[in-house]
C-alpha cells in the first residue's frame, strides 16, 4: 500500500475545449491538513469534483490508498470514506438540521432492505444509534438548539457548520472542504479553524480550498497552488507564500480575497 492516502497523477479535465485541469499531480498524506489555493476559475472545485466522482477526468489517475478510483460514482466514493462540503452550500433546505446530519449516517446504517416496510429489533437499535451519533455531532458543532429547524432557515455560518457535521457523520477518512470560510465573519472563521484542527485530531485527513490566506497559511501543512488548471507551486505555507510565481498569479488576477 502507498504511503499516501490520495494521489492525483497527471489528471486533466476538459470542458468543451476548455482545460479546467491541466495534467495536475499532488499527494496527500494520512493525517495532513492539505490546502489548495489559486485564483478564481483556476480549477480547484473541478479538482474536488473529479476526486468525488461528480466528474470523471479524461486523463490521469486518482489513487485512493494506491487503487485507481477514477470513474467511480459519487455514492461509491462516499462509501470509500471520502466526504465533502460544497462551495455553494447544498443542504436539504426544507428538512430539519438533525435530518440533514442524519444523511451522513446513511452509509453507516445497517438497516436491511425490508426495514423500509417493516421495523425489526435490529432496526430500532440501528436507528437509535445513528440518531445518537447525530446528537453528538450537533453538540460538537453547537447545533443542538436548531435540531428541528429547517436548515434553509439558518444563517450562512450555521449552514456551513451543518454541512461539515453532515460530512463528519459518515466518519470519513478524508474530509474535503470547498471554501469553508467563505461568507463567515472573523469570529466564525477563527472558530472554524479551531474546529478543523479538532477534526484532524480525531484522525481525519483534510483537504481544503480556501481564499482566506491567513487561515490557509496558519492551518495547512502543505499547499498546492493552481492557476489555469495547472500546478504552479507547491510546498509548505511559508514557501508558497513567498514564491514569486504565486505572488505573480495573484496580482495577475485582481480578486485575491473575497
Amino acid at each position, binding site marked *: 500500500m502507498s504511503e499516501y492516502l490520495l494521489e492525483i497523477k497527471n489528471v486533466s479535465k476538459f470542458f468543451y475545449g476548455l482545460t479546467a485541469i491541466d495534467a495536475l499531480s499532488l499527494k496527500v498524506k494520512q493525517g495532513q491538513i492539505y490546502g489548495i489555493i489559486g485564483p478564481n476559475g483556476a480549477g480547484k472545485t473541478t479538482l474536488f469534483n473529479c476526486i*468525488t466522482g*461528480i466528474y470523471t477526468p479524461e486523463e490521469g489517475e486518482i489513487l485512493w490508498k494506491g487503487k485507481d478510483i477514477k470513474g467511480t*460514482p*459519487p*455514492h*461509491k*466514493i*462516499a*462509501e470509500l470514506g471520502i*466526504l*465533502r462540503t*460544497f462551495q455553494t452550500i*447544498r*443542504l*436539504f*433546505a*426544507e*428538512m*430539519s438540521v*438533525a*435530518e440533514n446530519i*442524519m*444523511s*451522513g*449516517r*446513511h*452509509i453507516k*446504517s445497517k*438497516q436491511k*432492505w425490508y*426495514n*423500509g*416496510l*417493516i*421495523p425489526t429489533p435490529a*432496526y430500532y437499535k440501528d*436507528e*437509535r444509534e*445513528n*440518531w445518537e451519533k*447525530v*446528537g453528538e455531532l*450537533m453538540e460538537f458543532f453547537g447545533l*443542538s*438548539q*436548531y*435540531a*428541528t*429547524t*429547517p436548515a434553509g432557515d439558518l444563517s450562512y455560518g450555521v449552514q456551513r457548520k451543518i454541512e461539515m457535521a*453532515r*460530512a463528519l457523520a*459518515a466518519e470519513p477518512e478524508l474530509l474535503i472542504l470547498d471554501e469553508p470560510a467563505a461568507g463567515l465573519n472573523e469570529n466564525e472563521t477563527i472558530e472554524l479553524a479551531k474546529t478543523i484542527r479538532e477534526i484532524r485530531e480525531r484522525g481525519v485527513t483534510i483537504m481544503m480550498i480556501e481564499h482566506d490566506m491567513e487561515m490557509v497559511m496558519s492551518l495547512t501543512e502543505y499547499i498546492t497552488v493552481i492557476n489555469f488548471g495547472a500546478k504552479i507551486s507547491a510546498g509548505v505555507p511559508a514557501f508558497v507564500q513567498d514564491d514569486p510565481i504565486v505572488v505573480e498569479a495573484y496580482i495577475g488576477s485582481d480578486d485575491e480575497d473575497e
Partner: protein
Amino acid sequence: MKNISKNSMIAFGLLAIMGVFPFFANSAWIAIGTTFLVFSAVAFSQDIILGRAGAFHMGHAAFFGIGAYTTAILNVHFGWPILATWAPAVIIPVVIALLVTGPIIHLRGDYLLVATIGINIVFIQILENDLFGLTGGPNGIFGIEVIKVFGFEFFEQIHMYYLAFILLGITLFIMKSLDSSKFGRAMFYINKDDIAAQSMGISIRYYKLYAFAIGAGIAGAAGSMFAVQYSAVSPEAFNVLQSIMFFTIVLVGGSASLPGVLIGTFVMFILPEIFREFETARYLVFGVAMILTMILRPRGIWPVKFGNIPSFLKKDVK
C-alpha cells in the same frame, strides 16, 4: 408517546372515523367509502414515488391496472380463487415496475414524465388489443368472483369496505416504516438535492427503484381490490387521465403529507361522487382545484412538515 406528530394524530382520527363510518351509512355510501379507501391507497403509493423520491411519474394507473388485471385474468380465465391472486397482484406489478423503469430511472423531471406516460399508453394498447386473448380488449373482463374463505362469501359492500380499510391500514403502516427508516429519508435527500445525496453515499438509482417497487406493489394490491369491488375491469379505468389524477392528488394535497394526500383524494374522487350534479363537471372541479392550489398554495393544501426526529434530540430546542 408524546412525540406523535400532529399530522399522524389527524390521520389516526380520520382512520377512526372511517372505521366506524359503515355503521352510519347505507350501502351506496359504503361503496363510495370503499372507493375512497382504495384510491387513497393508490394515491399514497404515488406519493412514495412522487412526493418522497421526487420522480415525476405519470403512469401510475398502469401499475394499479396490472394488479387489477392480474386478479381478473387469474380468476376469470384460470379459475384461481381471489385470495390466491393477491400475491401475484402485488408481485407482478413490482417486477414489471422494476423492468420498465430500470432503463429510464436516470431520466430527470420532464423526461421521466414523458417516459412514464409512454409506459401507461403502451399498457392501455396492450389491454385494448386483447394480448394473448387474455385482457378482453376494450370491454375488459367481466364476472370476477367475490372473495371466499372456507365457504364464507364476502359479497356485501361492507365486506369490501373493511378489506379496503385493512389495505389502507397496511399502506399507512408501510409509509410510517418508510418515513422512519433510512430508505424513506434517502428518498427525501435525493428529492431535495441529488448531488448532495450522492455525495453522502446514497445511490439515486437504488432508492428511486425502491420507491417504484413499493409504489407499484401497493398500487397492485389496490388494483386487485378494485377489480373485485366492481367485479369487472376495463382499460379506461387505468388510462393516462387516471395517472394524471393520482399525480395531481399528491401535488394538490401536499407531497409526502399524510392528511394532504387524503384531502387530495377526497377532493378529486369523492367530492364529485357526493355532489352528483357535479359529476358531469368533475374535470372542471379538478382543473379549477389544480390551478387555484398551485397559485395559492404551491406546496399543496396541507404541506408536509419535516423534523420527524426522536424526542431526545429535541431537549435543547427552544
